[in-house]
């Protein structure tokens, strides 16, 4: 995977284990993400099946963006599990942002279990075209 910019990096320490522990004893999964950069924003898309707008939290603290999701665990009464290929748990992942992100204008939408975050670049960070004059 070619990393073309260092504006978003995974926050060190979170890919292996979560630094702070949740009070609930649930498994924590890293949601898979796509991150791409447009001319005026960085877009982060995370797969968080089972999560809706009420069960996802996004925090930005000192340039660390943390996504947390807690899908409801279903207990099907009167049913026995016959095949279990996946387990349900919380989602958590953190990224460190550069100063070039405008933290005030982050936009987040959840649809069909997919979280889409638009992180607008702060004004000075936007690309400027520099004209090269011939000498």
């Amino acid at each position, binding site marked *: 995977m*070619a990393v073309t910019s260092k504006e978003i990096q995974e926050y060190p320490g979170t890919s292996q284990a979560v630094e702070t522990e949740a009070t609930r004893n649930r498994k924590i999964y890293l949601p898979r*993400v796509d*991150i*791409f950069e447009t001319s005026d924003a960085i877009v982060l898309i995370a797969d968080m099946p*089972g*999560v809706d707008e009420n069960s996802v939290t996004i925090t930005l603290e000192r340039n660390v963006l943390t996504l947390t999701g807690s899908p409801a665990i279903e207990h099907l009464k009167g049913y*026995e*599990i*016959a095949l279990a290929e996946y387990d349900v748990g919380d989602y958590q992942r953190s990224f460190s942002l550069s100063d070039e992100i405008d933290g005030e204008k982050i936009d987040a939408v959840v649809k069909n279990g997919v979280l889409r975050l638009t992180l607008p670049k702060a004004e000075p960070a936007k690309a400027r075209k520099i004209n090269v004059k011939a000498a």
Partner: protein
Amino acid sequence: MFWPAFREMRRIGNPWLEMERLHREMDRLFSGASLPFAQNFPALNLWTSENDAIVTAELPGIDADGLEISVLDDTLALSGSRTPEELKEGESYHRQERGHGRFTRTITLPFKVNADKVEAVYERGILRITLPRAEEDKPKKIKVKSE
């Protein structure tokens, strides 16, 4: 009882499930930058009761209209696709971990299903299919007479 209750074990964590998850994760790591869905995608959970079965699958960001579900006797087939985000010129990926493409999955259920009464709901990225057991397949209770 000597055997630990299986339900308790499940709560503690199924080691096979954990292995399976690890396997998937390894597949993902070695499969390169752009990821078509793996053979065993999506992962399914199957719940059964006396009268029906429920199959759930985690399918985030799928167009529900494009999902195809078919049932024949005791076989459930599921297929659909997810389109990757189309980037405009000048836009570039920093990371691309989410899978995309077409997927097909077929499983055998523990009993025959009444195909007319199968219901599927897609909500919050989770597909849930309820499959009622076929009448003719239900076990018949035999009364024991005492004389």
